[in-house]
């Protein structure tokens, strides 16, 4: 049996390793936002859609779809590298069925230092559409869209390398609704 002093001296190293492992895990899963606090809205919503496509499922799609079939190749290209697609959408018959606190429960998660809100993003839809990107270094590690209308609340969360162009190609597929997002146009010189 090893002396107690030797075992004690290893404790800081073990603690450091645990912190390092926890940081890595947090970075890998950090782009996934918690949406279960919206679940209570299902009792009032005329239509609730809840889609969970985790990394394993995304990888299956990326792996088994053919690169030679043009339709399959398109999908394969879109999902390649993604680590998850999560959608929660609520439609209501009347206004006032969800509160600002419901919206804030999502928005507060997107105020973290790793998330940045894209400005100048517009949508063809009514109401407000906010798009957030999570950056780790110079890599995009996730995207979140919060769409709020009088009678509709939609949150789309895509984990992995995704940009607005990829998002627009995902619309209408894998449970991602039509968001009508228009990326900011690059400024042109006169």
């Amino acid at each position: 049996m090893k002396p107690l002093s030797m075992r004690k001296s290893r404790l800081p190293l073990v603690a450091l390793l645990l912190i390092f492992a926890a940081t890595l895990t947090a970075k890998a899963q950090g782009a996934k936002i918690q949406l279960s606090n919206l679940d209570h809205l299902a009792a009032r919503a005329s239509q609730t859609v809840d889609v969970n496509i985790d990394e394993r499922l995304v990888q299956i799609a990326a792996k088994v779809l053919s690169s030679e079939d043009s339709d399959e190749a398109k999908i394969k290209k879109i999902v390649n590298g993604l680590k998850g697609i999560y959608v929660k959408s609520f439609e209501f018959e009347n206004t006032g069925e969800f509160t600002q606190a419901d919206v804030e429960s999502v928005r507060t998660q997107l105020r973290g230092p790793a998330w940045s809100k894209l400005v100048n993003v517009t949508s063809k839809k009514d109401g407000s559409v906010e798009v957030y990107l999570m950056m780790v270094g110079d890599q995009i590690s996730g995207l979140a869209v919060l769409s709020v209308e009088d009678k509709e609340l939609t949150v789309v969360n895509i984990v992995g390398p995704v940009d607005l162009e990829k998002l627009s190609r995902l619309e209408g597929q894998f449970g991602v609704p039509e968001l009508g997002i228009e990326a900011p146009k690059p400024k042109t010189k006169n």
Partner: protein
Amino acid sequence: MRLDAPPATSRKKTNIAAVVAIALMFALAPSVQADGDDFGSVVKMIEHFYHVKHDGIPFLARAGMKAATTAARLKGGTAKRIAEAGSIKLAIFQDQEFNSAGRFTKFRTSLNSALAQSWMPFVQTLSAKDEEQTYIFLRNAGDNFHVLVITIEQREATVVQVTLSPKNLALLMQDPNGMGRAITEDATTTDPE
């Protein structure tokens, strides 16, 4: 200090009370257990919650149910079944009332927690107005996947479990909202000859 053993009649009463308590615990516990037959447990859960009874439908009787094929839902052209051969489990509830008076979210919570250990929730669509619900759960089945689809409407419900190849799962994943319908139709349709 000496502790006296309780009298025999008192011990007997305690034992009976314990047995009754355990029996009640089992009777009142959420009806789905994470055992091998989650399909059967889900059927029982619907029966308990909505006070309905599923119809016993012999496999051959399904021949006359629907004539359409769902093959068109899968891209690739040629008509083929979605589910792997012989993998379909089906329970149908017909012409019965599925009204929980607004408590359907409790059913959802119970279902999700009961299946949480062995199944992954994939898609859930709900409508509070008419209490229409569709749940799709997935789990690994060797090289393939088990897909459990629970559809509840106002007057009917179906529970379908099929085995899908990864390719068919990947193709159906593109349209998660249509996936439940496609699998249910596939399970209740015979091959066109």
